[in-house]
């Protein structure tokens, strides 16, 4: 990671999205903090950022998003607001040479953070020094029941896939399904799939079915590569009797299963099979269509 490039980009985006005096204020504060000002300066400024920058969207261009990706793989500030960028910037100005002092200051600001501050802090995880040192804190962020905070850790964030062990990873994915957060927005969702997670997700689907409720079609995404035995029975049932979106998801999952039986089941649905093979049906497209449908449902209800 090129942290100085990350900082440079943040500075430019804050200058573009904040009023002049807000931008100047952030610069002043980051210089004070970097220069070793007492911790209270960091704490008060970190809280006060939106008072000075406002809360406009950064609204990054495609080129800016690419620059972010180049500076730090997986870093996605594209949808941040300017106060989130400002808070990130101040966290990145904390002197970090003294590891213990640095981590204890960070810990204190995490412990006392309100909802918006927590979101900004968890979004900053992938660009912080000492990445391994924040694992317990990130896992703590997943235990929240405030969806915005959970999403700041789990979605559009490369940190979990890089740092979590399978136990924490699996809990995160299962909770994302449970709270209705989209799995396609979890970085590394395919790379970190594992047999235990597949089992947990299928168990969860069975619980929901027993209560006569449905599950998100995306649930089958991490299941596919590990689908075998009774899981294939489930997928066969879904591809035969599910909603169109569920059938598509089952087709995608079956196509990822290494078993011969999965191929046989899929062969009974040649249109879906061909759509997967042509690349016309992908997990990304399926997720986008599901989101659009949900938006329409909200509009129609309103």
């Amino acid at each position, binding site marked *: 990671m090129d942290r100085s490039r990350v900082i440079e980009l943040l500075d430019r985006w804050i200058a573009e999205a904040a009023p002049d005096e807000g931008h100047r204020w952030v610069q002043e504060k980051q210089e004070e903090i970097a220069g070793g000002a007492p*911790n209270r300066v960091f*704490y008060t400024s970190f*809280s*006060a950022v939106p*008072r000075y920058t406002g809360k406009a969207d950064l609204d990054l261009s495609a080129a800016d998003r690419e620059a972010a990706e180049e500076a730090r793989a997986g870093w996605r500030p594209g949808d941040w607001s300017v106060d989130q960028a400002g808070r990130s910037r101040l966290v990145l100005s904390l002197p970090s040479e003294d590891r213990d002092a640095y981590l204890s200051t960070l810990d204190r600001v995490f412990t*006392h953070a*309100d909802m918006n501050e927590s979101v900004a802090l968890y979004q900053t995880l992938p660009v912080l020094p000492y990445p391994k040192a924040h694992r317990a804190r990130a896992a703590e962020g997943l235990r929240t*029941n405030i969806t915005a905070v959970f999403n700041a850790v789990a979605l559009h964030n490369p940190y979990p896939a890089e740092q979590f062990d399978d136990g924490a990873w699996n809990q995160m994915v299962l909770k994302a399904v449970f709270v209705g957060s989209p799995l396609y927005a979890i970085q590394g969702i395919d790379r970190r799939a594992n047999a235990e997670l597949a089992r947990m997700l299928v168990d969860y689907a069975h619980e929901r079915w027993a209560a006569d409720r449905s599950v998100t079609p995306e649930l089958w995404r991490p299941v596919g590569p590990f689908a075998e035995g009774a899981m294939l029975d489930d997928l066969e049932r879904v591809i035969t009797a599910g909603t169109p979106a569920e059938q598509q998801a089952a087709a995608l999952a079956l196509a990822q299963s290494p078993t011969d039986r999965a191929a046989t089941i899929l062969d009974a649905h040649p249109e879906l099979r061909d759509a997967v093979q042509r690349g016309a049906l992908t997990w990304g497209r399926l997720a986008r269509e599901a989101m659009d449908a949900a938006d329409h449902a909200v509009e129609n209800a309103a």
Partner: protein
Amino acid sequence: MSENATPRDERTMYIDPHVHMVSRTTDDYEAMRDAGVVAVIEPAFWLGQPRTNIGAFQHYFNMLVGWERFRAAQFGIRHYCTIGLNAKEANNEPLAEEVMDLLPLYAAKEGVVAIGEIGYDDMTDAEERFFHEQLDLAKELDMLVLVHTPHRNKKEGTSRSMDLCEEHNLDPTRVIIDHNNEETVEEVLDRGFWAAFTIYPETKMGNERMVEIVREYGTERIFVDSAADWGVSDPLGVPKTAQLMLERGLPKEAARTVCYDNPLAAYGQSGQIAEEDWLNPPAIDQRQVYSGNSVLRGGRDPVVEDPADRRKDSIIIE
């Protein structure tokens, strides 16, 4: 509606700029909303008994910037707060020092409109010390100040509070002096501070006296609050006072100024409270959960709509 019932005028909006909602029930929130209260400010204060460790302050401040704000929103009321160390608890100096260390983590959070309520209780040295230190903090953070004036020795305590603010070069238009009465109002207004009046049964002001104060001093830099808390108090203090002003022949604009415009103008200087917050509010949705909790329990329908006028209290508070 009986003759004395709380009026329901859809066009009338009130702000209660001093009320301790952590001590109040959901019935109170419903009654306040029905009476036209659109926003409340909850000053950090003590809880009726002194706290004995710093964690208690931490949880309290967290509640003010988190859970209570959410709870109010469930009833369509916007909730703001002030953060500070109150005078009573300033007297436990070792703990007060820890609180001073905690304040920078809360003072500038979103929705915090002032440092407060701070000031004197018994006018001890410790109270004076932390009053000074918190005025420094307000100055450092360019924040407003809410001053609690003492129940005993009120006139002297009020003068001395304003002296301190002036010593710290605070602009009086950025300081709210609260719990005024007939004895203090003139000096507070003359010195250019905001004068808030607490309509609190028995111990502070009755609202009939309040009507006479507005008649005598006008409406400039004067506003009204309920300071309702865990004691016998009335969360409808503001709307009832507005109604009484009308019944006693004061013009409608006067009621609106002291029960809505002035607190908004005073605390609006913080940049943390604005009319759009409630004129363009997010829809009330009691199904939202915060930290796994909903205000609703036991499967009650998640809708707040016109509970019948259940309050038939007199509008006079004495």
